[in-house]
């Protein structure tokens, strides 16, 4: 499937398949939430309420929403560091996600992870990871454990592991895919190909720029999908997850999308050509999907605006919640270093004696 060459279909009047209208409106609402949340994150970063690195899903809303529409609640999700939208789509409270960005106790990771490290064990969001490729071996290991513990079939859990286009060049990707192919693990690797690894294009980084082909060495089928098409993403992901569950066949999905802004909030992306920027803006999935829904009669401007307004209020509340939440207490600094307490575990703060002088 050569989705790359598929014509954009802004003028399409009707949606394929039988997705109910309220579900489609729900996708729009989700995309609007991610968009609004990320823009607000950018603002909060500028207001210095968010520290460190902060990578946004702007431009990837259709990809995020489509993937999360396909995943089961029992499936495990691993992501890279561009993870805010996924946290929202795994139904984590926007306030708790914003609180994590603010480094507050109420954050999804207790304020200990920040932008790159959203985690929720209940929601089986098994972490945003900051080291490129670092999430792939653990995600593969969860699939290994699932295979050891569960019979294959439609009720089996599966793993979805997100990665960026740049990640396909790192060793962990290849080692992990080899294991998954070798051991027939229930995992779907999803390359979110926004065409830029920071400032480096895929063509400048990968000898095989058709990234979905990179599973061939491991007998892992690769599928490329238009990442700006929420339904195409959803359907491809659902099919891949199904194969993983029932056949123990790992799949490599490549979703083609555009990064609307810089690599992170602090990147003005001056390396991008005006043409590239123009394409990215024209492809922006949020207004495109809104226009599609309006054109299809599923939404009108007023209804769309009402959704946006509702979302705006939700994100306002998320910021308020984050603001109002308490900072972690330094007394709890060592709270989560170890799960099993053992003798002599360090607890000295800088300048403390290593032990009471005898």
């Amino acid at each position, binding site marked *: 499937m050569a989705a790359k060459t598929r014509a954009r279909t802004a003028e399409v009047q009707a949606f394929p398949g039988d997705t109910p209208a309220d579900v489609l409106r729900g996708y729009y609402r989700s995309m609007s939430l991610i968009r609004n949340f990320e823009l607000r994150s950018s603002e909060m970063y500028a207001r210095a309420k968010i520290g460190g690195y902060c990578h946004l899903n702007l431009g990837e809303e259709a990809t995020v929403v489509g993937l999360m529409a396909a995943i089961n609640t029992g499936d495990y999700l691993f992501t890279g560091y561009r993870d805010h939208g996924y946290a929202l789509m795994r139904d984590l409270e926007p306030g708790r996600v914003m609180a994590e960005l603010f480094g507050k106790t109420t954050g999804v990771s207790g304020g200990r992870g920040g932008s790159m490290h959203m*985690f929720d*064990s209940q929601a089986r969001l098994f972490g945003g990871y900051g080291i490129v490729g670092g999430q792939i071996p653990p995600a593969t290991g969860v699939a290994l454990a*699932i295979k050891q513990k569960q019979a294959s079939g439609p009720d089996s859990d599966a793993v979805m592991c997100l990665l960026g286009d740049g990640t396909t060049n790192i060793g962990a990707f290849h080692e992990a895919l080899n294991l998954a192919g070798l051991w027939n693990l229930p995992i779907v690797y999803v390359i979110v190909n926004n065409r830029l690894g920071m400032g480096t294009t895929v063509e400048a980084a990968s000898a095989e720029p058709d990234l979905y082909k990179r599973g061939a060495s491991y007998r892992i089928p690769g599928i490329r999908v238009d990442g700006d098409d929420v339904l195409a993403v959803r359907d491809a992901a659902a099919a891949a997850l199904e194969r993983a569950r029932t056949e123990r066949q790992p799949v490599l999905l490549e979703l083609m999308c555009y990064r609307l802004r810089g690599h992170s909030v602090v990147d003005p992306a001056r390396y991008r050509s005006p043409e590239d920027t123009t394409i990215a803006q024209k492809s922006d999935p949020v207004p495109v999907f809104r226009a599609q829904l309006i054109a299809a009669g599923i939404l009108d401007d007023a209804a769309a605006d009402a959704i946006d307004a509702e979302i705006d209020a939700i994100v306002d509340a998320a910021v308020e919640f984050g603001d109002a939440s308490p900072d972690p207490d330094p007394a709890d600094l060592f709270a989560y270093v170890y799960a099993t307490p053992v*003798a002599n575990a360090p607890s000295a703060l800088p300048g403390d004696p290593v*032990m009471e002088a005898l």
Partner: protein
Amino acid sequence: MSIEAAPVTDPPATRVITYRQALNETLRAELLHDENVFLIGEEIGVFEGSYKITAGLLTEFGPDRVVDAPIAEEGFVGAALGAAMIGMRPVVEIMTINFSLIAIDQIVNHAAKMRSMFGGQVAVPMVIRMPGGGGQQLAATHSQNLEVWFAHIPGLKVLAPSTPADAKALLTAAIRDDDPVIFIENLSLYSSKGEVPDGEQIAEIGKAAVVKEGTDLTIVSYSRGTTTALEVAHKLEAEGLSIEVVDLRSLRPLDRETICASVRKTGHAVVFEDDWLSYGIGAEISATIGEGVFDFLDAPVRRVAAAEVPLPYAKTLELAALPHAAELAKVVREVLNVAPLEK
């Protein structure tokens, strides 16, 4: 030894077995004890382990419990980590500690961080076993003692048993611990023998042991070094020197109390370590002693460590680079300012 045995009226019977056998039996016992325990590593199944630690286990437990992994340390260490995230208790064998560097991202950036970084929502009950050590003419890349790489990292626990009994009791403790545990073995210890109590033995992680008492000087060591330290201590006993030997057993957490209590008594300390001198385990021990019992020191703390050179192959050079009993005895005498009685 601070081994917490089940409270029984009679001490458990013991057998004299090798360090290798103790590890093998413990792995088997834990595979039987908990169905979530599984082994993973290169050549651990069909080949029965590069050093035969896993002999017989594939046959007994099958390929789901004894997983032969391809040569992909980052991949399979990370995979074990993932399995641990959802409640499995993988025991990874890395063929030698040297190859752990290929998996270092998974160990240091991931296994050690998961729990803390995600606000305590996940535990990583995994053990990574690996032998270190030089002396077998394995040359520069296969003879390293990299334990300090791991001992430096919060979130990891690092154990280094010196005896078969500790190999058993500490490995059991490691497998039942809910944190990533780096379990340092040593090639030259595998065939060493010692008394090992029967039945379940679980050591307390984070505790050093005074394995020989003495009054004149404390030798602090771990793993293979402890066996050398004991040998030297007993030899010097005949010269009228009373040497105490502290076996660290746990490099992280470090039992500073036991070290300092010993040096407080003896006033003299020598660290015997197989790793390189600068920034090594001994540096931490020395600093601990300096801070903890400065007023009780009767001489500077000395370290006997490996020469700081990529270990050469040639036997003469290898012997020259590694720390042995003779150097330890020499330094002990220097610290105590006594002349050897023998030539």
